[in-house]
């Protein structure tokens, strides 16, 4: 099943690659506050060699939702955002590492291999509400911890970066 999904994902990636110029035009330069700045080896940019995404741009991408508990919060919460898989597809990134950096310059490395269906996402809504900086917002990389013990590891916890504002794709 997973293999099958990967094949589909791969096929989609090729499709996206061929349509890059079109997609670049689809994500215009941000009108509101920039929530996420993506740099590095990416196939799509909108401001110089960066891809700057405001809330509208993020929400325009295919959204993913799941419910899970986290070790940092009480109870189960629902999260909505762009899955890492979708985001990497959009960026045309298929391999390498993403360096994710928070508002306070806390940075972690997330391998592109994490970008799989049912995997982690860049969440912008928690319990259908926007997240403030005080609530680990505005963006938080979360994984579906409850769905798989593999997501309840030290490494995954360390990749669950909150108050995210930058991504850099490196090889």
């Amino acid at each position, binding site marked *: 099943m997973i293999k099958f999904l990967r094949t589909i994902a791969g096929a989609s990636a090729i499709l996206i690659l061929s349509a890059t110029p079109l997609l670049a035009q689809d994500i215009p330069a941000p009108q509101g506050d920039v929530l996420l700045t993506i740099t590095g080896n990416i196939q799509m940019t909108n401001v110089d060699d960066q891809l700057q995404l405001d809330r509208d741009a993020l929400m325009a991408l295919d959204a993913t939702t799941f419910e899970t508990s986290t*070790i*940092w919060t009480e109870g189960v919460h629902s999260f909505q955002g762009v899955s890492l898989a979708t985001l990497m597809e959009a960026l045309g990134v298929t391999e390498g590492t993403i360096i994710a950096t928070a508002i306070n310059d806390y940075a972690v490395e997330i391998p592109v291999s994490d970008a799989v269906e049912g995997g982690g996402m860049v969440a912008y809504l928690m319990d259908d509400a926007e997240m403030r900086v*005080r609530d680990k917002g505005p963006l938080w990389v979360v994984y579906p911890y409850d769905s798989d013990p593999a997501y*309840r590891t*030290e490494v995954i916890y360390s990749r669950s970066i909150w108050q995210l504002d930058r991504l850099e794709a490196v090889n």
Partner: protein
Amino acid sequence: MPDTADQRAAAGRTFAVLAGLLVIGAILFLAFNVSREIRLLGSANSDNVQWSLAQTEVEFLEYRRHLDADPVNLSALRRNFDVFYSRMDTISQASVFETTRADVGFSDTLRDIQLFLTASVPIIDADDADLRLLLPELAALADGIRPSVRDLATAGLDIFARESDVRREAVARTMSQLAFALSLLIGTLGLAIFYLYRLIAIVSRRETQQKQTAVRLNTVIGTSLDGVIVSDARGRIIEFSPAAEVIFGHSRHDVIGRDIGQVIVPPHLRGAHDAGMERMRTTGEKHVVGKGRLKLEAQRANGELFPVELAIQSATTDTGEIYIAFLRDISARVAAEAELVAARDRALAGEKLKTEFLATMSHEIRTPLNGILGNMDLLHNTTLTPDQARYLRHMETSGRLLLTHVSDVLDITRYDAGKLNIQRVAMNLGDLVQDIIDSQSSMAAQNGTALDWGWDGPPQVWVESDPDRLQHVLMNLVGNAVKFTRQGKVSLTVSVRADGQGDRLRVEIADTGPGLAADLKDRVFDDFVTGNTAYDRDVGGTGLGLAIAKRFVTALDGQIGVNSEPGQGCTFWIDIPIKRVTRHADAVETVRSSGKIAPLDILVVEDNEINRIVVRDMLQAAGHRVTEAHDGQQGMIKAQSHAYDLILMDISMPVMDGRTATRLIRAGQGASANTRILALTANVLQDERAAFLEDGMDGILTKPLTQAALHAALAKEDRAQTAPRAFDVIDSQHNRETRDVLGVDTYDMMRSRFDADMGALIAELTDGAGDPAAMAAAAHKGAGSAAVFGAVALRETLKQIETAAKSGDTDALPGLIAALPDLHRDTIAALA
């Protein structure tokens, strides 16, 4: 031993299984432990908590630094405040800090910081102008809480250090357990290895044992004197032992694989052998196998047949059922057995010859003795000087002793030849004992010995037993006691008592004689045993008297014994089963040698002149009239013309023997045709006696004739003569004698014939068609037959019919004939 090995193997298996389970358990336990450890390490629900706490202070200081900046960047200040706020929010909520929050100091500090945040938020959230005015206140708040932030970080460090210790200890404990479990595992494995080693040792030892057993078995089979042949289910030889090679003359090499039937079974048994093998193969039914030892015939390689003893057993092997036969050549044994049988037959024949020789010898000795003793008896009636009288007494004593010895030998011979017939008749015990005492009293008086007898317990005069044997035994015992006792006392005690099975007669003869030596006591009843030789010479004896007594008592199903102490006298006793009876008319009374007898007219037929004179003189001395005849023919002629009261008839005579003469007298119409005839003979073998009676004799007098015996016979005759004419149906004594001499089988046969003859006779007479002469002849013949059985009434009636027929007294005939059927019936009933 195999049992123990099996038990050990079973215990070993159990142990192995248990050890295996233990190992598996230990492995599972370890796997569980390790996986738990991995899970604990892997799913660290802790994040980097310490870093987070340290980060708290960093973020707080960052916020504080922005407060001091000049000019203050409000946006950055707000962002740094939010970052710190978020951090504190996380610490307050995150589950990873749950244990940390449980610490009182930590939670207090946390509350202080939250209060600080709550106080700062309105200021931070105010518009830029207000915020700038309130910056000093924010700074004051921040400075106020700074120690708390620091405490939080350090408190966290302490808690985590403690937790870390606990965790380390837990890990150490787990590792210890792991080590222990591993030791256990290694130990178990070690045990398993040891056990396997043991198993291997046992298996190898068992293999060795099996090899030794096989070698031993082969040796046993190889050295067995019995031939061992093993065949498969189809009868093909698969083993042929060295002994079998020797017995059958086949070599093992030649017969292996061949059919056993063709190799060792003789041709005439092969059919049965093949059928037996076929039956076992098809039905499994076994007739020979496992049935123990059998004797059969077998064949050697050279065709010789010989007897074998064999046992066959079957066993089931991997290749099917096999038969193991153990065979032994028993030709030598069979030959030896045949030889033994032949030897025994020869011995038996020799024994028979000896018995016949002894009987003949005793007869030959008794005949001349008869003459000697008879003449000495007569000599007493002549005038003798005192010396002559003394010499005569001595001669008589010696002569009688010699006669006793001959009689003893004859008795032994008779008993050992199995010719001793025991009778059971009613008899007067008191009279019998009294007679014995009387006959011995003069001898006792000569020795100065008192002789008496008495009853122990209530007298039981009439009993049923064999008076002749009893008299013989008691006479012997009393005679011995009197013989050996000088100046003493001999007492005879009789008692009849009931025991569990019936009545028993016990007679004890106690004397005050010299007694018996201990060694003699044990063998006093053996043949030819005598006591002190010198003393014996004085009293005499063959050493057969007690041996005969013992034989008689044994024949009567009784016991005989002796209690004795040397010098204290001895007590002989007999104990025999008897039956109490009440007196009845036919009972035998011991003949008393007293009373006067009316003079009789007697014919003595005897060829031996001496004997004839002896008898004549004895009879004449008693007052009888005697006519002599020198042979059977003379006797017969005299009997024809004169009616005698009694005829004494010798058996062996020239011209005509006594038996022929008797038959002719009985068959003829002479004057003495119905006279009582007594045989006078020294020949006393039973079968001959029977023949005499069949010839028509009425009794037997044994030579040498004594005055007492003659007197007794005459007294009986006298009684018969003087008895009233109302006849008894049966003269039971006569009948008993007949039965005695004939033997039961012959007697029964003759009785049946007599019954049938009499029936035919009665039918003939009743018919009345015959002429008087024929009727007389038939009645005469019938009377003769009746006489043989002692059927007195029948005989007398028939005699009357004969007389009536002869004299033409036809009026008397119908009445007499009419009485016959009843008499016939009664007689047959009495004879049964």
